[in-house]
């Protein structure tokens, strides 16, 4: 073994180094540009600042925290050249189950008739949510790895079935009256005068953990390898099937976590929760530079992509743009992001 302190920055053969910006820089500039536009429009049309408003900033981050957690799981799935359409439905189903484990014991309409029970410690509800998410994610991965059907189809099936399960679980009834110790996880607490919602803290922690996981661990390296070239990955000794099962299980686990946060924040659960979350999550990844072709993508990009979606939604509300227009423009932003992504890829290919 050689001394690690040697100058590793020097050029291998004396060729000039090309300076590279991290790919996130351009996305960050886009975010700043969008914020700037809203700031200017805000002063012109509403007569107040868009950014300098604690309440608004708090809402922006709270809005994106849940889809952000999902988007992090989906990012690693997309890096393997897969996709996960089931996360929104999984949030719906798991939120129902989680809520049913967090109901006040004296509630007469509790899912589990609980005479003689005391309120369960919220840790149980959370454990159930994470375990169920991981189990459903594992099933996604198992089907994809063993039958080799496209991830699009496998997770589409899960998306439809999980939504069905969500409705079946209480025959369409919402699950309400949750314990305070559980809903605590959905509330805000003040930091330096800022109301910070706990889901946002969870989102940040998850983002940091997964950034480390994808950048500094073998798990992360293999994830990129499989997406970049599955055949070469196989010849390099990577067990692709096993690894994909891990990746989808982790994505499911994060959907479970998102479900816990959703139920805690809403202080209830209903079967329609999480509709469209999977698409918001995928959009966040793509805006953040993750390539649907696999092999490319970073958590930092997804993080910024998530914030961009939140800022756009919040900005339109701030400018009192109607909800219909919001959706129309959101769609355009997603497509524009993919167009830019493809343009970037082509440029890279041409320079080869």
């Amino acid at each position, binding site marked *: *073994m*050689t*001394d*690690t302190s*040697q100058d*590793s*920055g020097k*050029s*291998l*053969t004396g*060729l*000039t*180094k*090309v300076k*590279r910006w991290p790919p996130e820089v351009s996305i960050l500039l886009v975010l700043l540009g969008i914020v700037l536009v809203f700031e200017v429009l805000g002063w012109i049309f509403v007569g107040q600042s868009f950014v300098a408003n604690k309440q608004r900033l708090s809402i922006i981050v709270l809005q994106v925290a849940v889809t952000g957690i999902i988007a992090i799981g989906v990012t690693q799935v997309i890096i393997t050249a897969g996709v996960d359409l089931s996360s929104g439905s999984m949030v719906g189903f798991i939120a129902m189950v989680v809520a049913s484990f967090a109901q006040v014991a004296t509630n007469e309409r509790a899912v589990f008739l609980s005479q003689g029970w005391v309120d369960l410690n919220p840790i149980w509800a959370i454990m159930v949510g994470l375990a169920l998410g991981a189990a459903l994610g594992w099933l996604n991965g198992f089907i994809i790895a063993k039958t080799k059907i496209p991830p699009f189809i496998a997770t589409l099936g899960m998306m439809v079935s999980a939504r069905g399960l969500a409705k079946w679980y209480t025959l369409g009834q919402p699950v309400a009256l949750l314990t305070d110790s559980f809903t605590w996880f959905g509330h805000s607490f003040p930091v330096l005068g800022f109301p910070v919602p706990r889901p946002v803290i969870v989102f940040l922690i998850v983002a940091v953990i997964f950034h480390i996981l994808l950048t*500094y*661990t*073998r*798990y992360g*390296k*293999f994830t*990129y*390898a499989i*997406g*970049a*070239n599955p*055949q*070469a*990955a*196989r*010849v*390099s*000794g*990577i*067990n692709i099937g096993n690894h994909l099962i891990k990746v989808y299980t982790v994505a499911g686990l994060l959907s479970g976590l998102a479900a816990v946060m959703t139920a805690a924040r809403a202080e209830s659960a209903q079967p329609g929760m999480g509709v469209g979350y999977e698409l918001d999550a995928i959009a966040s990844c793509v805006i953040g530079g993750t390539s649907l072709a*696999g*092999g*490319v993508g970073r958590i930092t990009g997804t993080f910024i992509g998530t914030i961009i979606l939140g800022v756009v939604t919040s900005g339109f509300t701030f400018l009192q743009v109607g909800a219909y227009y919001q959706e129309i423009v959101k769609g355009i932003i997603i497509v524009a992001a993919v167009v830019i992504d493809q343009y970037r890829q082509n440029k*890279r*290919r041409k*320079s*080869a």
Partner: protein
Amino acid sequence: MVSPSTMKIVRESGAVPGSEFVLEVSEVRKEFPGVVALDNVKFQLRRGTVHALMGENGAGKSTLMKIIAGIYTPDSGTFKLRGVDIRLKSPLDALENGIAMIHQELNLMGPMTVAENIWIRREPKNRFGLIDHAAMRRNTEDLFKRLNIDIDPMVEVGTLSVANRQMVEIAKAVSFNSDVLIMDEPTSALTEKEVAHLFSIIRALRTEGKGIIYITHKMNELFEIADEFSVFRDGKYIATKPSSSVTRDDIIRMMVGREITQMFPKETVPIGNVKLAVKGLGLKGVFQDVSFEVREGEILGIAGLVGSGRSNIAETIFGVSPASAGSIEIDGKPVNIKNPAIAMKHGIAFLTEDRKETGCFLLLDIQDNTQMAVLQSRYVNYGFVQQKQLSTDSEEMAQTLRVRTPDMQEPIMNLSGGNQQKVLIARWLLTRPRILILDEPTRGIDVGAKAEIHKLVSQLAGQGVAVIMISSEMPEVLGMSDRIMVVHEGRVTGFLDRKDADQVKIMELASH
């Protein structure tokens, strides 16, 4: 400057401006980020000649050809086609002006028929404006007859062999009535017989007055087919000469700018114990009853035609496609290799034949490409990659192998083929293999890099590594191997010792 449409009219009128050269380019410059790919290069192609392009990988041959074929736009330079100034804007533009390129990686659509592939975008139409399949078939048959190609126009391209696909590509290029045909290493995947057929087609095209640009790394092809050749080195034009006027050594000197004393320097090293023994190995429908031994420090060459099953044998030993019969022993102990991970645990490394398909992670950087295999066994602590140590060791390995790159963070797709190959070799050397399987280790690699790789393999053998080397290049097999195993149609047809092996004996065994 003349617009392409005017050119077309001029061509069709037959009033072609007279010129000795069908194509002349000069003062061409092309830069890529961080690299000057072409620096003031010139090139002249005479009518009715085969003009070979020689040079190491990264010398700029492929870049120049892509510029001529309209794929890249040069930063500067003048182009004369049939004596008239022209500027090509796209590959289509080039095709319409009579320049066709047959790529190293074939660009045909597998699920479509041969005829559809050839006439795509130019399909003959019937009076209702729909595609006239009968006419398309007749046109294809006429074309094939002229070129002496025997392929059914109505079969799907995906079912054809690589050689036949190549023929289809060539026929397609000819069907544009091109005056300039560019062939980028057309023989790299062909058997001797197929090469002979290809050469007869090339000669026929030459007598029709077409100019053919022929990129190759194979010296003997140069002398067999080319009238002239041009040499490039490090993006610069070196010389153009008639191929009858020079020797092999002259060309190598021009290409590398230095003397290479010995091309295949297998050193004599002490041969140790039997490391790998294969007994009665078989894979259903592909090969059967393969038995051989490799000793520590020994290089076993495997010769045979493409499609003889030689690559499949390697894949089976490495667990890519596990055996359906027979047994494998390592150090005298039987092992069950079900997948590549198990093979790697037993100290086997496998450099695959197809760099692009099964080798490189094209989207990832050199560092990631170098380290991907070794992460199975080392440099990982509780799941975390020991990146600092690994980067240092990888970079050292890349330096030893003389990978030409600004740094390890360069995407591997920006490297030339030879440098990519070196990165892949570095990947496997990091795993410290005891058994090294090399499938076409120097295909498409320049002479300098070739000699370096041979020296390296020889050194590894000296350290007691058992080496299996599959190669289509006779001089490589003969020069490097201690013993040669010849495979034909999925069976081992014989073993030859280094001292009594020669090209004729190998060919006899390989083609029975």
